[in-house]
Protein backbone atom coordinates (compact mmCIF):
# COMPACT_ATOMS: atom_id res chain seq x y z
CA UNK A 1 0.00 0.00 0.00
CA UNK A 2 1.39 3.37 -0.91
CA UNK A 3 2.14 5.64 1.94
CA UNK A 4 -0.13 8.60 2.20
CA UNK A 5 2.21 11.49 1.47
CA UNK A 6 -0.47 14.11 1.34
CA UNK A 7 -1.29 16.10 4.44
CA UNK A 8 -4.51 15.00 6.08
CA UNK A 9 -4.72 17.83 8.55
CA UNK A 10 -7.76 19.12 6.70
CA UNK A 11 -9.70 16.21 8.14
CA UNK A 12 -9.35 17.68 11.63
CA UNK A 13 -10.99 20.97 10.77
CA UNK A 14 -14.58 21.31 11.84
CA UNK A 15 -16.10 23.09 8.89
CA UNK A 16 -19.23 24.01 10.79
CA UNK A 17 -17.15 26.25 13.01
CA UNK A 18 -16.46 28.49 10.08
CA UNK A 19 -20.02 28.71 8.88
CA UNK A 20 -20.80 32.39 8.65
CA UNK A 21 -24.27 32.08 10.12
CA UNK A 22 -22.79 30.79 13.33
CA UNK A 23 -20.37 33.61 13.82
CA UNK A 24 -22.84 35.98 15.46
CA UNK A 25 -23.35 33.74 18.45
CA UNK A 26 -22.06 34.48 21.92
CA UNK A 27 -19.71 32.47 24.02
CA UNK A 28 -22.04 29.90 25.51
CA UNK A 29 -23.09 28.42 22.18
CA UNK A 30 -19.53 27.99 21.11
CA UNK A 31 -18.96 26.39 24.45
CA UNK A 32 -21.52 23.71 23.71
CA UNK A 33 -19.49 22.46 20.78
CA UNK A 34 -15.96 22.78 22.06
CA UNK A 35 -16.46 22.58 25.82
CA UNK A 36 -13.85 25.24 26.56
CA UNK A 37 -12.57 25.51 30.07
CA UNK A 38 -13.48 28.40 32.29
CA UNK A 39 -9.92 29.69 32.17
CA UNK A 40 -9.92 30.38 28.42
CA UNK A 41 -13.20 32.21 28.43
CA UNK A 42 -12.49 34.36 31.43
CA UNK A 43 -9.04 35.29 30.16
CA UNK A 44 -10.72 36.88 27.16
CA UNK A 45 -13.12 38.92 29.22
CA UNK A 46 -11.05 39.70 32.26
CA UNK A 47 -11.64 43.43 31.96
CA UNK A 48 -15.32 43.22 32.84
CA UNK A 49 -15.64 41.33 36.10
CA UNK A 50 -19.41 41.29 36.49
CA UNK A 51 -19.98 40.39 32.87
CA UNK A 52 -17.23 37.81 33.21
CA UNK A 53 -19.03 36.19 36.10
CA UNK A 54 -22.33 36.01 34.22
CA UNK A 55 -20.72 34.60 31.11
CA UNK A 56 -18.73 32.00 33.00
CA UNK A 57 -21.86 30.99 34.87
CA UNK A 58 -23.68 30.51 31.59
CA UNK A 59 -20.81 28.46 30.22
CA UNK A 60 -20.72 26.25 33.30
CA UNK A 61 -24.47 25.67 33.32
CA UNK A 62 -24.51 24.85 29.61
CA UNK A 63 -22.24 21.83 30.05
CA UNK A 64 -23.63 18.33 29.99
CA UNK A 65 -23.05 16.36 33.20
CA UNK A 66 -20.84 13.82 31.45
CA UNK A 67 -18.62 16.54 30.01
CA UNK A 68 -17.79 18.10 33.35
CA UNK A 69 -15.20 15.57 34.44
CA UNK A 70 -13.03 15.63 31.31
CA UNK A 71 -13.23 19.41 31.27
CA UNK A 72 -11.93 19.66 34.84
CA UNK A 73 -9.21 17.09 34.07
CA UNK A 74 -7.96 19.26 31.24
CA UNK A 75 -7.20 22.15 33.57
CA UNK A 76 -3.85 22.73 35.25
CA UNK A 77 -3.46 23.52 38.96
CA UNK A 78 -4.09 27.24 38.59
CA UNK A 79 -7.03 26.53 36.32
CA UNK A 80 -8.65 24.33 38.95
CA UNK A 81 -8.19 27.05 41.59
CA UNK A 82 -9.73 29.62 39.25
CA UNK A 83 -12.63 27.30 38.46
CA UNK A 84 -13.29 26.88 42.19
CA UNK A 85 -13.44 30.66 42.57
CA UNK A 86 -16.05 30.92 39.83
CA UNK A 87 -18.03 28.04 41.29
CA UNK A 88 -18.28 29.76 44.64
CA UNK A 89 -19.09 33.09 43.01
CA UNK A 90 -21.82 31.25 41.13
CA UNK A 91 -23.19 29.91 44.42
CA UNK A 92 -23.40 33.48 45.70
CA UNK A 93 -25.74 34.55 42.93
CA UNK A 94 -27.94 31.58 42.11
CA UNK A 95 -29.79 31.64 38.80
CA UNK A 96 -32.68 29.18 38.35
CA UNK A 97 -31.11 25.76 38.30
CA UNK A 98 -27.51 26.88 38.47
CA UNK A 99 -26.77 25.53 41.95
CA UNK A 100 -27.42 21.94 40.97
CA UNK A 101 -24.96 22.01 38.08
CA UNK A 102 -22.51 24.00 40.14
CA UNK A 103 -22.61 21.31 42.81
CA UNK A 104 -21.61 18.77 40.18
CA UNK A 105 -18.78 21.02 39.05
CA UNK A 106 -17.78 21.47 42.68
CA UNK A 107 -17.62 17.72 43.24
CA UNK A 108 -15.36 17.15 40.25
CA UNK A 109 -13.15 20.13 40.95
CA UNK A 110 -12.82 19.11 44.60
CA UNK A 111 -11.71 15.64 43.58
CA UNK A 112 -8.79 17.18 41.70
CA UNK A 113 -8.02 20.29 43.74
CA UNK A 114 -8.71 18.99 47.23
CA UNK A 115 -9.36 21.08 50.30
CA UNK A 116 -6.44 23.31 49.33
CA UNK A 117 -8.31 24.70 46.31
CA UNK A 118 -11.26 25.67 48.52
CA UNK A 119 -8.92 27.26 51.09
CA UNK A 120 -7.38 29.30 48.29
CA UNK A 121 -10.83 30.59 47.28
CA UNK A 122 -11.26 31.86 50.83
CA UNK A 123 -7.80 33.40 51.21
CA UNK A 124 -7.41 34.89 47.76
CA UNK A 125 -7.17 38.68 47.70
CA UNK A 126 -8.06 38.96 44.03
CA UNK A 127 -11.66 37.94 43.75
CA UNK A 128 -13.27 37.06 40.46
Amino acid at each position, binding site marked *: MAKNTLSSRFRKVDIDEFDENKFVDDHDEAADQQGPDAVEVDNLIRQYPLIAQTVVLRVLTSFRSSDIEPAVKSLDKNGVDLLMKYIYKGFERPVENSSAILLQWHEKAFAI*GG*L*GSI*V*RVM*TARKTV
Partner: protein
Amino acid sequence: MSLYSFGLEPLSCHAWSKDRTQIAISPNSNEVHIYQKKEKEWIKIHELTEHSGRITGIDWAPESNRIVTCASDRNAYVWTLKDGVWKPTLVLVRINRAATCVKWSPLENKFALGSGAKLISVCYFEKENDWWLSKHIKKPINSTVLSLDWHPNNMLLAAGSADLNCRIFSAYIKDIEDRPGPTPWGSKMPFGELLLEYKECGGWVHSVCFSPSGDALAWVSHNSAISVADATKGKEVTQLTTGHLPLLSILYVSETEIVAAGHDCCPYQFSYKGPGCLEFVKKVDIPKQSSKGNMSAMQHFRNLDKKAITEEEDTDLGSLHQNSITQLCILEGLKAKVVKFSSVALDGAMVVWDFKH
Protein backbone atom coordinates in the same frame (compact mmCIF):
# COMPACT_ATOMS: atom_id res chain seq x y z
CA MET B 1 7.26 6.75 66.26
CA SER B 2 5.60 7.16 69.62
CA LEU B 3 2.82 9.24 71.06
CA TYR B 4 2.52 10.66 74.55
CA SER B 5 -0.57 12.46 75.75
CA PHE B 6 -0.07 15.34 78.15
CA GLY B 7 -3.75 15.66 78.90
CA LEU B 8 -6.79 17.10 77.20
CA GLU B 9 -5.63 20.70 76.83
CA PRO B 10 -4.10 21.76 73.52
CA LEU B 11 -0.34 22.20 73.59
CA SER B 12 0.52 25.70 72.41
CA CYS B 13 4.25 25.20 72.16
CA HIS B 14 7.13 23.03 73.36
CA ALA B 15 10.90 23.03 73.73
CA TRP B 16 13.45 20.33 74.58
CA SER B 17 16.38 20.43 76.98
CA LYS B 18 19.85 19.74 75.58
CA ASP B 19 19.88 16.01 76.39
CA ARG B 20 16.22 15.61 75.43
CA THR B 21 15.28 14.11 78.82
CA GLN B 22 13.22 17.15 79.71
CA ILE B 23 10.50 18.91 77.80
CA ALA B 24 8.90 22.29 78.50
CA ILE B 25 5.32 22.62 77.32
CA SER B 26 2.42 24.97 77.81
CA PRO B 27 -1.07 23.52 78.04
CA ASN B 28 -2.82 26.52 76.48
CA SER B 29 -2.55 28.51 79.71
CA ASN B 30 -0.28 31.04 81.39
CA GLU B 31 1.94 28.30 82.80
CA VAL B 32 4.93 26.40 81.48
CA HIS B 33 5.29 22.83 82.71
CA ILE B 34 8.60 21.02 82.60
CA TYR B 35 8.45 17.24 82.44
CA GLN B 36 11.26 14.75 83.06
CA LYS B 37 11.43 11.49 81.15
CA LYS B 38 11.28 8.36 83.30
CA GLU B 39 11.38 5.22 81.14
CA LYS B 40 8.18 5.51 79.10
CA GLU B 41 6.46 8.10 81.28
CA TRP B 42 6.89 11.84 81.69
CA ILE B 43 6.82 13.23 85.24
CA LYS B 44 6.13 16.91 85.90
CA ILE B 45 9.04 18.41 87.81
CA HIS B 46 8.62 22.18 87.47
CA GLU B 47 5.87 24.71 86.96
CA LEU B 48 6.86 28.16 85.72
CA THR B 49 4.09 30.56 86.66
CA GLU B 50 5.30 34.11 86.19
CA HIS B 51 3.21 35.04 83.16
CA SER B 52 -0.30 36.43 83.45
CA GLY B 53 -1.33 35.80 79.85
CA ARG B 54 -1.47 32.74 77.63
CA ILE B 55 2.01 31.47 76.75
CA THR B 56 2.65 31.79 73.03
CA GLY B 57 6.30 30.79 72.73
CA ILE B 58 8.94 28.76 74.56
CA ASP B 59 12.55 28.23 73.52
CA TRP B 60 15.23 26.33 75.44
CA ALA B 61 18.85 27.22 74.72
CA PRO B 62 20.86 23.96 74.76
CA GLU B 63 24.33 25.29 75.65
CA SER B 64 23.53 27.99 78.18
CA ASN B 65 20.52 26.08 79.55
CA ARG B 66 18.24 29.10 79.63
CA ILE B 67 14.58 29.10 78.77
CA VAL B 68 12.88 32.12 77.21
CA THR B 69 9.09 32.35 77.32
CA CYS B 70 6.72 34.90 75.88
CA ALA B 71 3.02 35.39 76.34
CA SER B 72 0.01 37.43 75.39
CA ASP B 73 0.63 39.63 78.46
CA ARG B 74 3.23 41.53 76.37
CA ASN B 75 6.09 40.18 78.45
CA ALA B 76 9.02 37.84 77.99
CA TYR B 77 11.01 36.16 80.72
CA VAL B 78 14.41 34.49 80.61
CA TRP B 79 14.59 31.61 83.10
CA THR B 80 17.84 30.28 84.58
CA LEU B 81 18.17 27.19 86.72
CA LYS B 82 19.56 28.02 90.19
CA ASP B 83 19.71 25.35 92.89
CA GLY B 84 17.15 23.22 91.12
CA VAL B 85 14.65 26.07 90.75
CA TRP B 86 13.94 28.08 87.62
CA LYS B 87 14.25 31.80 88.32
CA PRO B 88 12.68 34.33 85.94
CA THR B 89 14.22 37.59 84.76
CA LEU B 90 11.94 40.09 83.11
CA VAL B 91 13.02 41.31 79.69
CA LEU B 92 12.06 44.85 78.70
CA VAL B 93 10.69 44.11 75.26
CA ARG B 94 8.70 47.36 75.12
CA ILE B 95 5.76 46.08 73.10
CA ASN B 96 2.18 47.22 73.51
CA ARG B 97 0.56 44.09 72.07
CA ALA B 98 0.86 40.37 72.71
CA ALA B 99 4.08 38.52 71.95
CA THR B 100 3.54 35.72 69.44
CA CYS B 101 6.80 33.79 69.07
CA VAL B 102 10.31 33.68 70.46
CA LYS B 103 13.57 32.09 69.32
CA TRP B 104 17.12 31.97 70.72
CA SER B 105 19.82 32.78 68.19
CA PRO B 106 22.22 29.92 67.30
CA LEU B 107 24.95 31.31 69.57
CA GLU B 108 22.40 32.05 72.30
CA ASN B 109 23.67 35.56 72.94
CA LYS B 110 20.38 37.11 71.86
CA PHE B 111 16.83 36.16 71.07
CA ALA B 112 14.15 37.49 68.76
CA LEU B 113 10.54 38.05 69.76
CA GLY B 114 7.66 38.54 67.34
CA SER B 115 4.59 40.45 68.43
CA GLY B 116 1.19 41.75 67.46
CA ALA B 117 2.64 45.26 67.71
CA LYS B 118 3.88 44.87 64.14
CA LEU B 119 7.48 44.67 65.25
CA ILE B 120 10.24 42.27 66.16
CA SER B 121 12.13 42.81 69.37
CA VAL B 122 15.72 41.56 69.32
CA CYS B 123 16.93 41.23 72.90
CA TYR B 124 20.44 40.88 74.27
CA PHE B 125 22.01 40.89 77.72
CA GLU B 126 23.92 43.96 78.83
CA LYS B 127 26.48 42.95 81.44
CA GLU B 128 27.15 46.40 82.93
CA ASN B 129 23.59 46.95 84.08
CA ASP B 130 22.78 43.27 84.42
CA TRP B 131 19.61 43.40 82.37
CA TRP B 132 18.17 42.46 79.02
CA LEU B 133 17.82 45.22 76.45
CA SER B 134 15.88 45.20 73.23
CA LYS B 135 16.10 46.76 69.81
CA HIS B 136 13.09 46.98 67.54
CA ILE B 137 12.69 46.14 63.90
CA LYS B 138 9.59 47.95 62.67
CA LYS B 139 9.80 48.88 59.02
CA PRO B 140 8.18 47.69 56.83
CA ILE B 141 6.16 45.21 58.90
CA ASN B 142 2.46 45.95 58.57
CA SER B 143 0.81 43.37 60.77
CA THR B 144 1.39 40.74 63.44
CA VAL B 145 4.64 38.78 63.20
CA LEU B 146 3.60 35.13 63.29
CA SER B 147 6.88 33.25 63.11
CA LEU B 148 10.64 33.70 63.30
CA ASP B 149 13.75 31.72 62.43
CA TRP B 150 17.45 32.51 62.72
CA HIS B 151 20.02 31.98 60.00
CA PRO B 152 22.95 29.77 61.12
CA ASN B 153 25.26 32.81 60.98
CA ASN B 154 23.53 34.27 64.05
CA MET B 155 22.85 37.54 62.21
CA LEU B 156 19.97 37.12 59.81
CA LEU B 157 16.40 36.66 60.97
CA ALA B 158 13.48 35.48 58.87
CA ALA B 159 9.99 36.64 59.81
CA GLY B 160 6.61 35.50 58.54
CA SER B 161 3.80 37.94 59.09
CA ALA B 162 0.03 38.34 58.87
CA ASP B 163 0.49 41.10 56.30
CA LEU B 164 1.05 38.23 53.82
CA ASN B 165 4.76 38.94 53.54
CA CYS B 166 7.84 36.88 54.29
CA ARG B 167 10.96 38.87 55.09
CA ILE B 168 14.59 38.47 56.10
CA PHE B 169 16.12 41.14 58.33
CA SER B 170 19.55 41.70 59.71
CA ALA B 171 19.62 41.43 63.50
CA TYR B 172 23.27 42.39 63.88
CA ILE B 173 23.82 44.13 67.22
CA LYS B 174 27.13 45.94 67.18
CA ASP B 175 27.35 46.20 70.98
CA ILE B 176 27.78 42.50 71.45
CA GLU B 177 29.24 41.04 68.30
CA ASP B 178 31.55 41.56 65.33
CA ARG B 179 30.35 42.58 61.94
CA PRO B 180 29.11 39.62 59.90
CA GLY B 181 30.68 38.55 56.64
CA PRO B 182 28.72 38.63 53.37
CA THR B 183 26.17 35.89 52.67
CA PRO B 184 24.24 34.96 49.52
CA TRP B 185 21.37 37.06 50.94
CA GLY B 186 23.39 40.26 50.96
CA SER B 187 26.54 41.91 52.28
CA LYS B 188 25.49 45.18 53.88
CA MET B 189 23.79 44.26 57.13
CA PRO B 190 23.20 47.09 59.59
CA PHE B 191 20.54 46.33 62.18
CA GLY B 192 17.06 46.16 60.68
CA GLU B 193 18.26 46.00 57.08
CA LEU B 194 15.74 44.24 54.82
CA LEU B 195 17.45 41.54 52.74
CA LEU B 196 14.40 39.80 51.34
CA GLU B 197 10.79 40.85 51.08
CA TYR B 198 8.40 38.48 49.37
CA LYS B 199 5.00 40.10 49.13
CA GLU B 200 1.66 38.44 48.51
CA CYS B 201 2.50 35.02 49.87
CA GLY B 202 -1.19 34.25 49.39
CA GLY B 203 -2.05 34.02 53.06
CA TRP B 204 -0.75 34.52 56.58
CA VAL B 205 2.76 33.15 56.79
CA HIS B 206 2.48 30.69 59.67
CA SER B 207 6.01 29.35 59.87
CA VAL B 208 9.45 30.03 58.37
CA CYS B 209 12.60 27.90 58.40
CA PHE B 210 16.10 28.38 57.03
CA SER B 211 17.84 25.43 55.39
CA PRO B 212 20.82 23.97 57.32
CA SER B 213 23.30 25.99 55.22
CA GLY B 214 21.13 29.10 55.40
CA ASP B 215 21.05 29.49 51.64
CA ALA B 216 17.36 28.77 51.29
CA LEU B 217 14.31 29.86 53.25
CA ALA B 218 11.11 27.84 53.30
CA TRP B 219 7.72 28.98 54.60
CA VAL B 220 4.12 27.84 54.77
CA SER B 221 1.19 30.16 54.29
CA HIS B 222 -2.52 29.93 54.91
CA ASN B 223 -3.43 29.44 51.25
CA SER B 224 -2.31 25.81 51.66
CA ALA B 225 0.98 26.47 49.97
CA ILE B 226 4.64 25.89 50.75
CA SER B 227 7.28 28.17 49.25
CA VAL B 228 11.07 28.25 49.11
CA ALA B 229 13.30 31.26 48.39
CA ASP B 230 16.74 30.37 47.10
CA ALA B 231 19.54 32.85 47.77
CA THR B 232 21.99 31.09 45.49
CA LYS B 233 19.61 31.48 42.54
CA GLY B 234 18.96 35.19 42.79
CA LYS B 235 16.48 34.84 45.68
CA GLU B 236 14.03 33.16 43.32
CA VAL B 237 10.87 31.90 45.02
CA THR B 238 9.22 28.61 44.14
CA GLN B 239 5.69 28.01 45.44
CA LEU B 240 3.83 24.71 45.57
CA THR B 241 0.08 24.84 46.20
CA THR B 242 -1.25 21.72 47.89
CA GLY B 243 -4.66 20.10 48.04
CA HIS B 244 -4.42 19.80 51.84
CA LEU B 245 -5.61 22.06 54.59
CA PRO B 246 -3.19 24.88 55.50
CA LEU B 247 0.11 23.91 57.11
CA LEU B 248 1.13 25.56 60.36
CA SER B 249 4.71 24.51 60.99
CA ILE B 250 7.70 23.79 58.78
CA LEU B 251 11.06 22.16 59.45
CA TYR B 252 14.11 21.41 57.32
CA VAL B 253 15.35 17.88 57.99
CA SER B 254 18.23 17.94 55.52
CA GLU B 255 19.53 20.34 52.90
CA THR B 256 16.84 19.29 50.42
CA GLU B 257 14.11 17.60 52.44
CA ILE B 258 11.43 19.56 54.27
CA VAL B 259 8.72 18.37 56.65
CA ALA B 260 5.60 20.46 57.26
CA ALA B 261 2.44 19.82 59.29
CA GLY B 262 -0.74 21.67 60.15
CA HIS B 263 -4.50 21.41 60.12
CA ASP B 264 -4.47 18.02 58.42
CA CYS B 265 -3.05 16.57 61.65
CA CYS B 266 -0.16 14.73 60.03
CA PRO B 267 3.30 15.72 58.75
CA TYR B 268 4.05 15.81 55.02
CA GLN B 269 7.45 15.54 53.41
CA PHE B 270 8.48 17.84 50.57
CA SER B 271 11.63 18.02 48.52
CA TYR B 272 13.33 21.11 47.10
CA LYS B 273 16.02 20.52 44.52
CA GLY B 274 16.20 23.88 42.81
CA PRO B 275 14.02 26.70 41.47
CA GLY B 276 10.81 25.23 40.10
CA CYS B 277 11.56 21.83 41.66
CA LEU B 278 9.52 21.83 44.84
CA GLU B 279 7.45 18.70 45.15
CA PHE B 280 5.41 16.66 47.57
CA VAL B 281 7.08 13.39 48.53
CA LYS B 282 4.83 11.57 50.96
CA LYS B 283 2.78 11.60 54.15
CA VAL B 284 4.87 10.84 57.24
CA ASP B 285 2.36 8.73 59.16
CA ILE B 286 1.37 5.10 59.58
CA PRO B 287 -2.18 4.56 58.32
CA LYS B 288 -4.51 3.38 61.04
CA GLN B 289 -5.21 -0.34 60.79
CA SER B 290 -8.84 -0.79 60.01
CA SER B 291 -10.50 -3.40 62.18
CA LYS B 292 -13.74 -3.47 60.27
CA GLY B 293 -13.10 -6.81 58.63
CA ASN B 294 -12.45 -8.66 61.85
CA MET B 295 -15.70 -8.00 63.60
CA SER B 296 -17.46 -11.18 64.60
CA ALA B 297 -21.16 -11.85 64.21
CA MET B 298 -21.54 -11.57 67.97
CA GLN B 299 -19.99 -8.12 67.93
CA HIS B 300 -22.32 -7.13 65.12
CA PHE B 301 -25.47 -7.99 67.03
CA ARG B 302 -24.10 -6.50 70.22
CA ASN B 303 -23.58 -3.18 68.44
CA LEU B 304 -27.03 -3.36 66.97
CA ASP B 305 -28.51 -4.02 70.37
CA LYS B 306 -26.55 -1.45 72.35
CA LYS B 307 -26.07 1.41 69.95
CA ALA B 308 -28.49 0.64 67.11
CA ILE B 309 -25.70 0.85 64.58
CA THR B 310 -24.99 -1.73 61.93
CA GLU B 311 -21.30 -1.11 61.52
CA GLU B 312 -18.38 -0.06 63.62
CA GLU B 313 -18.22 3.70 63.32
CA ASP B 314 -14.77 4.99 63.72
CA THR B 315 -14.79 8.66 64.59
CA ASP B 316 -11.03 8.84 64.98
CA LEU B 317 -8.93 10.40 62.25
CA GLY B 318 -6.64 8.07 60.41
CA SER B 319 -3.57 9.86 61.76
CA LEU B 320 -1.68 9.68 65.06
CA HIS B 321 -2.63 13.20 66.05
CA GLN B 322 -6.35 13.86 66.40
CA ASN B 323 -6.20 17.60 65.95
CA SER B 324 -4.11 20.26 64.18
CA ILE B 325 -0.36 20.09 64.69
CA THR B 326 0.89 23.45 65.96
CA GLN B 327 4.64 23.04 66.16
CA LEU B 328 7.46 20.81 64.89
CA CYS B 329 10.85 20.61 66.57
CA ILE B 330 14.13 18.80 65.84
CA LEU B 331 14.64 16.09 68.42
CA GLU B 332 17.67 14.11 67.36
CA GLY B 333 20.35 14.60 64.76
CA LEU B 334 22.07 17.63 63.30
CA LYS B 335 20.10 20.25 61.40
CA ALA B 336 21.51 18.84 58.18
CA LYS B 337 20.52 15.29 59.00
CA VAL B 338 17.57 15.11 61.35
CA VAL B 339 16.91 11.61 62.64
CA LYS B 340 13.92 12.33 64.85
CA PHE B 341 11.55 15.25 65.18
CA SER B 342 8.68 15.96 67.55
CA SER B 343 5.27 17.48 67.03
CA VAL B 344 2.69 18.91 69.42
CA ALA B 345 -0.92 19.45 68.56
CA LEU B 346 -4.24 20.79 69.76
CA ASP B 347 -5.15 17.29 70.98
CA GLY B 348 -2.68 17.59 73.87
CA ALA B 349 -0.35 14.93 72.52
CA MET B 350 3.33 15.00 71.65
CA VAL B 351 4.52 12.58 68.96
CA VAL B 352 8.09 11.62 68.18
CA TRP B 353 8.61 10.83 64.50
CA ASP B 354 11.52 8.95 62.93
CA PHE B 355 12.88 10.25 59.67
CA LYS B 356 14.76 8.06 57.25
CA HIS B 357 16.95 9.85 54.74
